[in-house]
């Protein structure tokens, strides 16, 4: 990758080892990875290959046991929990396999949830704008139990977008969805990447969906075994160079 390409995340020899009894589990074992602005990266691999652990590290939800990690050109090694939260705020957005929508809040209130913690005034227009981006503007007043699985995941994506993150990290976002809704979610990610320049890092079991990304990283036993770059990424790298 060109040195002049802006790197949002940069990992060098990234490791995350766990101790399970006397056994050391190498969930992530010496990964080098860079995420640049405006790309969509798929992380593929079988269960236990280290996909989720890698995402947790890249999103500062977990701390590496080795290597270096730069988020937004800032080293996050040795930072405490609240310092890591500060790094995440406004820079990283999250989507999880389980939607984790609060059942007593409306769709709009769920989307606005992060802003409560940001102590930011909540503008309903802003919320509706974000909901429009995920095609749920007309569902703002609905409660989560009135939505389908695909709609709930789109609400979760809107919740991640309300803070205008530079990177959206999605861990198995289609895991609880049928194929049609899974495709819709990936289409949405593509639109966010291409129209708004947001980077998306997504893990998936579904190889067909994963191949819609600009870059496909395949993991096995905590290591990158294969990295494929699509034509759009090559073009993107040429532009940023």
């Amino acid at each position, binding site marked *: 990758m060109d040195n002049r390409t802006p790197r949002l995340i940069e990992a060098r020899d990234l490791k995350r080892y766990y101790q399970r009894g006397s056994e050391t589990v190498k969930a992530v074992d010496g990964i080098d990875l860079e995420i640049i602005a405006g790309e969509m990266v798929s992380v593929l691999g079988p269960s236990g290959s280290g996909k989720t652990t890698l995402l*947790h590290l890249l*999103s500062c*939800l*977990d701390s590496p046991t080795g290597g270096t990690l730069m988020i937004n050109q800032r080293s996050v090694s040795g930072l405490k*929990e*609240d310092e890591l*939260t500060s790094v*995440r*705020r*406004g820079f990283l957005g*999250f989507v*999880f*396999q*389980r939607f*984790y929508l*609060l*059942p*007593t*809040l409306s769709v709009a*209130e769920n989307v*606005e*949830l*992060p802003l*409560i*913690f*940001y102590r930011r005034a*909540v503008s309903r227009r802003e919320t509706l704008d974000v909901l429009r981006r995920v095609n749920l503007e007309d569902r703002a007043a609905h409660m989560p139990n009135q939505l389908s699985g695909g709609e709930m995941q789109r609400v979760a994506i809107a*919740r*991640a977008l309300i*803070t205008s993150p530079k990177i959206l990290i999605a861990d198995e976002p289609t895991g609880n969805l049928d194929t049609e809704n899974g495709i819709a979610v990936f289409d949405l990610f593509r639109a966010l990447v291409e129209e708004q320049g947001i980077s998306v890092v997504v893990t998936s079991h579904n190889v067909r969906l994963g191949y819609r990304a600009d870059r496909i990283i395949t993991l096995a036993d905590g290591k990158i075994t294969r990295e494929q770059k699509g034509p759009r990424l090559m073009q993107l790298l040429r532009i940023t160079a």
Partner: protein
Amino acid sequence: MRFLSLALKNLLRRPVRTILTTAGVALAVAVAVSLAGFNLGYRRAIERSIDRLGFQVMIMAKGCPYEAATMMLKGGTGLLYLPSDTYDQVRSDPEIASITSIFIGIAEREASSIRGDSSNAFAVLTGVEPKSLTEMKPWLEFQTGAGFDGGRWFSRPDEVVMGYEAATYEQRKVGDTYMVNVSPYGSSGSVLKEFKIVGVLKRTGTQDDGTVFLPIKTAQSIFNRPDHLTILGMKLRHFSGASLQEFESRWAKLPEVQVVSLQQVKSTLVMLVGTAQVMIVAVTVIAILVAVIGVINTILMSVYERTGEIGVMKALGAFRGDVFQLIWLETLMVCVAGAVAGSALALGGSRLTEGAIKALINIGIQGSLVTITWPVLLGAFGGAAVVGFFAGLYPAWRAASMLPVDAIREGIG
């Protein structure tokens, strides 16, 4: 949406559990408010009742101080008498501003056996000297209206004045005849006595309402105790601790009498319910502890149920302090809601509480025994907030301490 509404909506996710926990707090607050209201009301009622006796110091026959304390308020059948010449000895004391002598006798109501009303079979006949009595009790006034007009104090030996409740119970008016069976001292039989009612007093809210007043000489005569008195009631010129002590020591030399200040009576009456109060305080403390444990348990359970959500909140940008604040706020809201409900319950149930207390410890105190004031209610709110403050610390700390990655992982599991 703000923290407050988020906390409220979190609590409403499990409405039954939240309501039950709040009810536990409400019950504890209701008990605490009722107890505080009783403490306050009881003291005020004692002071009111004793102040309405009209005198500051009593001289009475030596005996049980508890009996002495309650007799003037509630009446009693185990009467003790002091020699009537005590009056002559004491009245010359320069410290006495005014003095009145009282003779109390218990008579059997006429036809009480026919009514079958054994609990009200006895009548309290109080022999008084109207001039000195009304000096001490200037609030005594005669009832007016049909059948009551023209009321006056007695001027003849066979005339009586009835308290409001006594007249109501006997269905008597001014000019009617009042008859009682009296057992003279030293005689085994009873004698029917007939009196003319010359006045009915207005309600005073004291023991006087149930009393039949008659001339002291008549009372001494019909009970065949011409040389006895029940009480000497006095007002002192200087009613301070030192002068009272001096007065007491001066008259403690008399062999058959005791000097009882009404301040002592107040203390005695407070002591009388002391044991009951300790018991109620213990019950309150237990109720509060149970409520606190209930609150901690509920909030902790809710924290564990929302482990994944808490992890996601942290992932979305919530600091440890934000999560702490949210959970803590939920605890405070349960406690404050409990305080509101408990205070309302205590206010609504104060009459019931009062009835129960009076049934449990009836010592003849007149008026309201449970007084729930704003300071009492504010105290309950403050107490509930303090309880919420401490009860919320542990669950809030547990939630804030969850590592986001662990919380999300556990939530998924």
